């Protein structure tokens, strides 16, 4: 799988369909998400990512590895990821174990995106305080990073009980931790964190004007180079995006408008036209989606992963599957070709388990040969 990865991410909202009036049951929504993931693989997409949620109106997995392990058994090729895994309210020990276990089941087709979670009430349900959000993200990931790379850990921090001689099990597949993306809309500390570790940075890139994305990605690239992981252009960037497509642009707008007007987050607010102009949302023909998406590169540079949000706001499963057909048949093949042609030399491919294993082995043999000549 060369170059860029294309896929979808789902936040698993259970929203009444404003057109037919029905609200899916939790079971229906959960099974729909499985079907959407399978379909994403069938149409040739590279990535499926699911959000983590603990409150209505969501039926996203409260612990994503439960879903990802199920999907691992039902799919063959697609990379399974999260959007996002809450690094603040989850115990890093549990994250280390569950994601490593799912990584084995998925034969390495698994990575994850860390986020803090912006729903204040969730924190106390897990004994945390939202005011510690950044601190929790910093400390918990620092421990998670160590748990996947070292054994017999003795550790002491501010927000968790100490560990003495602890080894997280199972160890990551082939001794290589799942790749981590750090997601944040506008907290510079998180771009800094991603840069420090040389991990990926993902901007959700929906609901907000592109300037937010641009300034976060610029900071991440600059600091990635500062920490010696490569040039700014070699940093690993992922973007979200939100699309609705029909062959005819006017049909797309007409069909999507009632969903837009009632959608969670922005429903009842700006017009579809304003929101389309001010944010990356694109409602129109496949060609319009292709052009807009290629334009993302103008403000973030060459990037490695593009995920689209297509299954929210009460859109029926049938419509979502049609959107996947359009993505797979008409949009992604063109984006793959065009982005590849535009890509500057030296820009790395999207990381996968096999590329991370190869990089680790190359680094090891480099060290060994240096020791041999000493």
């Amino acid at each position, binding site marked *: 799988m060369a170059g860029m990865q294309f896929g979808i991410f789902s936040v698993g909202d259970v929203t009444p369909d404003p057109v037919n009036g029905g609200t899916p049951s939790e079971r229906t929504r959960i099974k729909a998400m499985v079907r959407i993931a399978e379909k994403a693989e069938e149409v040739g997409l590279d990535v499926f990512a699911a959000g983590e949620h603990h409150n209505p109106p969501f039926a996203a997995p409260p612990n994503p590895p439960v879903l990802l392990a199920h999907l691992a058994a039902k799919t063959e090729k697609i990379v399974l990821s999260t959007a996002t895994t809450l690094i603040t309210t989850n115990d890093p020990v549990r994250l280390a174990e569950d994601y490593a276990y799912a990584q084995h089941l998925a034969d390495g087709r698994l990575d994850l995106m860390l986020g803090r979670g912006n729903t204040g009430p969730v924190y106390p349900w897990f004994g945390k305080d939202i005011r510690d959000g*950044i*601190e929790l993200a*910093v*400390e918990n990931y*620092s421990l998670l990073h160590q748990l996947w790379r070292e054994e017999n850990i003795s550790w*002491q*921090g*501010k*927000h968790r009980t100490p560990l003495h001689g602890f080894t997280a099990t199972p160890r990551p597949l082939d001794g290589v931790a799942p790749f981590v993306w750090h997601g944040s809309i506008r907290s*510079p*500390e998180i*771009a*800094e*964190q991603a*840069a*420090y570790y040389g991990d990926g940075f993902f901007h959700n890139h929906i*609901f*907000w*004007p592109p300037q*937010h994305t641009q*300034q*976060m990605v*610029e*900071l991440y690239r600059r*600091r990635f180079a500062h*920490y010696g992981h490569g040039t700014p252009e070699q940093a690993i960037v992922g973007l979200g995006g939100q699309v609705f497509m029909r062959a005819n642009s006017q049909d797309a707008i007409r069909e999507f408008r009632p969903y837009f007007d009632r959608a969670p*987050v*922005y429903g*009842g*607010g*700006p017009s579809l036209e*304003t*929101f389309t*102009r*001010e944010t990356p949302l694109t409602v129109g023909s496949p060609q319009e989606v292709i052009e807009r998406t290629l334009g993302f590169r103008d403000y973030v540079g060459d990037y490695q992963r593009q995920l689209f949000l297509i299954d929210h706001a009460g859109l029926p499963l049938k419509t979502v599957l049609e959107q996947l057909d359009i993505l797979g048949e008409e949009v992604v093949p063109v984006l793959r070709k065009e982005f590849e042609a535009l890509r500057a030399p030296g820009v790395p491919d999207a990381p996968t388990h096999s590329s991370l294993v190869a990089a680790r082995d190359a680094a090891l043999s480099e060290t060994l040969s240096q020791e041999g000549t000493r």
Partner: protein
Amino acid sequence: MTSLVVVSAGLRVPSTTAQLADQLSAAAARELGLLESPVEVTRVEVRDHAHAIADALLTGFPTGSLAEAVETISAADALVIVTPTFQASYSGLFKAFFDLIPSLAGVPVLLAATGGTERHSLVLEYALRPLVSYLGGVSVPTGVYAATADLGGPGAPKLGMRIDRAAAELATLTAGSPLPRRRQDDFADVTPFEEQLRRLRP
């Protein structure tokens, strides 16, 4: 160049709030003009942005000309803010607009309000002044409150005197730069990660 921004939250045309804003704008421009650099006056009519303000509160970001107005205020050297008094406080639209302003740190601000009766004049002290303080602005000591009686009848000359005094105070504070203008750039001055980690060590 001294940038004076006048925010007026009157709703109707003609509006007494807009009239008061006109008088304050002229007086403040005159007084600021006595300083060394020329004055550029920008007027923001909150009513023009009413729908965009509601949208911004729902989406979290201002768009179009509202975004420009927010940026203009963030870059102002001196500010005049004028609101009608509704239900014993600033108008809801006025407050909604200021809910979108991230900071007024170090900016001298002249407070003004209109109302149907002089009995509401303390609205300047218990509503506007705390709002400006919260945003880090430096409100001038003399606030200007205009009731119906001040705009026509025998109270009018006294209102003019208060306007002049407040405008002179605004100019003095602007010239004196009482506080450094803190326009922090979180993206230029990011806390290094080692520092973030260090703070967590027991």
